[in-house]
């Protein structure tokens, strides 16, 4: 009997890896979470765990959102290096305009403006890369400077003041004891699962897998590619909203380190950089792993530059991993 059980588990694990490329991200998620909790001095005091959960998810939400957007772009065979800059612009717009709770209509309008900006910026990226066939890395890197320039123009020095009511709402809203940020994450995962099982999901993987073959099969390749950038821009605008609610103020460089974080998160989540393989659930896990690493570094009272260093090292390791393993195998032969 245990033999049979074992093979079932092995099969499940294999499926998880081959079908959804989730193996690596799950291992990292468990490892970093255990390490983080082990470092907490008050772990066994009542309330510590639930406090950690709520406070962490609201801090991680912006990065998880941009990571999911990045994952979708990479799945479709592209890369978005401008999502962090889109976050900055959204953050600056909100910090400048949402200053009082007395004008709810105007505030909602400004939120919509931020979302519209994210979608428009994403569409521009998609238009240049997918429609005109230009290099995604170059186009989105260049457009990131346009967007961060815009953010700096709007708000040269840090400032702005989001009404406390709103930040409190973000911090303490719970539904059945589940914090708002976690609900958003679960919603994203559900929406993804919904679309994954539809034509769109199939097309996304096909385009990322081999766009020429997808084109000859009758997949609307250009539109699928453009859509990935639009989704990434949209999620970046949501990240801007949650970031603003988290910090309560505006900073023209607020999204700067989110770009690299989103790529790292996607790669840690098992998204293949060449496109067409991976899962957005993995990207969410990847985003959480990044949050854990950030926490571990701050718990250990290390300098914050360690975070960038570790992020960058992780990305190089994860990307070079398969190549290094192949190299070792060949050497053995």
């Amino acid at each position, binding site marked *: 009997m245990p033999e049979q059980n074992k093979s079932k588990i092995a099969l499940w694990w294999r499926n998880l890896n081959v079908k959804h490329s989730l193996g690596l991200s799950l291992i990292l998620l468990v490892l970093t979470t255990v390490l983080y909790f082990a470092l907490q001095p008050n772990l066994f005091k009542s309330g510590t765990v639930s406090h950690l959960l709520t406070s962490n998810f609201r801090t991680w939400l912006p990065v998880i959102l941009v990571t999911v957007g990045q994952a979708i772009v990479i799945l479709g065979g592209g890369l978005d290096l401008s999502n962090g800059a889109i976050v900055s612009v959204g953050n600056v717009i909100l910090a400048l305009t949402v200053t009082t709770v007395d004008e709810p209509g105007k505030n909602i309008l400004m939120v919509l403006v931020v979302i519209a900006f994210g979608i428009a910026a994403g569409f521009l990226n998609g238009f240049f890369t997918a429609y005109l066939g230009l290099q995604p890395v170059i186009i989105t890197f260049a457009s990131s400077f346009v967007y961060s320039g815009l953010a700096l123009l709007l708000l040269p020095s840090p400032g702005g003041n989001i009404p406390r009511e709103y930040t409190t709402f973000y911090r303490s809203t719970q539904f059945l004891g589940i914090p708002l940020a976690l609900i958003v994450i679960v919603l994203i995962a559900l929406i993804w699962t919904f679309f994954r099982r539809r*034509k769109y999901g*199939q097309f996304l993987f*096909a385009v990322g897998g081999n766009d020429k073959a997808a084109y*000859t099969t009758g997949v609307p390749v250009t539109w699928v590619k453009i859509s990935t950038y639009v989704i990434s821009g949209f999620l970046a605008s949501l990240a801007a909203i949650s970031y603003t609610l988290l910090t309560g103020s505006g900073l023209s460089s607020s999204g700067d380190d989110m770009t690299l974080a989103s790529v790292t998160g996607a790669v840690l989540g098992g998204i293949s950089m060449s496109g067409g393989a991976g899962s957005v659930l993995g990207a969410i896990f990847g985003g959480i792993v990044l949050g854990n690493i950030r926490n571990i570094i701050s718990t250990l009272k290390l300098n914050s530059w360690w975070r960038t260093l570790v992020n960058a090292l992780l990305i190089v390791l994860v990307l070079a991993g398969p190549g290094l393993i192949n190299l070792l195998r060949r050497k053995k032969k």
Partner: protein
Amino acid sequence: MKSIVLCTENIEKRFGGVIALKDGSIEIRPGEVLALVGSNGSGKSTLTKVITGVLSSDGGTITYHDKPVSYSNPMAAQRAGIMAVYQELSLIPSLTVAQNIWLANEPKTRFGSIDSKTMNAETAKLLTLFEGTFQPSLHPEAYVRDLPLDERQIVEILKAYSRKPEVLILDEATASLDSKQVNCLFDLIQLLKSEDKGLVFVSHRMDEIFRIADRAVILRNGKTVGEVLIADSNEDEIVHLMVGSNVGLTRELGGRMTFSAQESVLIVEDLENEQLNGVSFNIKQGELVGIGGLRGQGQSSLLHTLFGNSHYTGKITLFDETLSFDHPKEAIEHGVALIPGDRATEGLLLLRSIFENFHLPNWAKYCRPLLKMKSAHSDAEEMGKQLNLIMESLDAPVSSLSGGNAQKVVIGKWLLREPKLLLLDDPTKGVDVGTKSEFYKLLVKLQENGTTILFYSSDEQELLDLCERVLVMQDGKVKADLSGDNLTEANLVFHSMGATNNNNHHEESTHA
């Protein structure tokens, strides 16, 4: 005569300055298999791609169900019921067999999501059409990246079939299938025929054309040159139409050298790797040997293997020395030079000057201890003159040259090393006629100076004009070794197509 479901008239297609198709005219009738026949570069694939909307035409009309149509993308053609099985497969490696077959045509559940269960079940049903001809590893949920080429081809065929096309074009669909799989495919074609579908069968294999096709349209140099009923025709007639008026003309032997007395400088025995299945031949000092055959039969791989660029088993003896090159560098040191087919990616630094390109493999010669730029310059100038290179100056970038002149630079850089064995990998592709003839003169001159040359060309005429001997390759083997009176265009085409019952042409085949 049956009605016509789809007909093309005078289709034209140009790629830049190169005309791939001048006058493509075919008529597809329901319940009939039309074979599209032609040698390399005759425009078969281009014509099928125009019909299916992958390429847009530059002229001519397509009539489908009595209405003029023009599809700007494959989606539109598919919706109208025109499907193709492509030579370069349109599969996505990272998706499963079922996902590939049903891509953009997925069955849905009541809730609008993809019905994977039905998809897999339907795929399993489709696979029974090829039952017994593939490994158990081919199942609906297998990933295409894990499948060998023949099984991928089966998936590609089933993908087209599953869309229930009105017109199905099979472009070289049998090239990677074994005989059992071909039988299954032919059963499937018969089934579609009985359902009154229009079928187009593009193949290089004569025997298959005679087995399955009802009519054949022959293309030559992008033009429809003839149409025959298979029942009233024979292999010879088709070969005649393919090669045109100069059929049967043997090359003038005057001035050709005879090499029987000389020693072999290159002996190749049982060369094998992924693309080669046991190639054996030998070449004598100063011989100019052509390699012919259809594209992609292992010719480039053979040249690259001789140049130390890929792994192999077997034995290569060059100048009485058994070789085992691991790297092109070793081949170069032994006096071997390879002139690649794709000059833009494999042969030239386009943005650098002609001078730099000439000397890229040669700097060691001028370096003692400082670079002797003066003598390098005069050597380059000499080479430019010898090649009749039309250029602004040696310092102009290679990208400023025309295609033919750029190709001369690729050749020149190796000639500066004075190679003893020159390997050419389809060097005149996309080169204009004037440059070609200069190029031929150059090769003959080199040969007279004692250089041994192995020359692959996809242009049959070129092989006939230049070479004393031509090795015809098929499926990674040397299918025939033609020389003297046997070296005729008809024979060349005949062996390329894998035809066998040759009565009219004298031939000797080194390989069964």
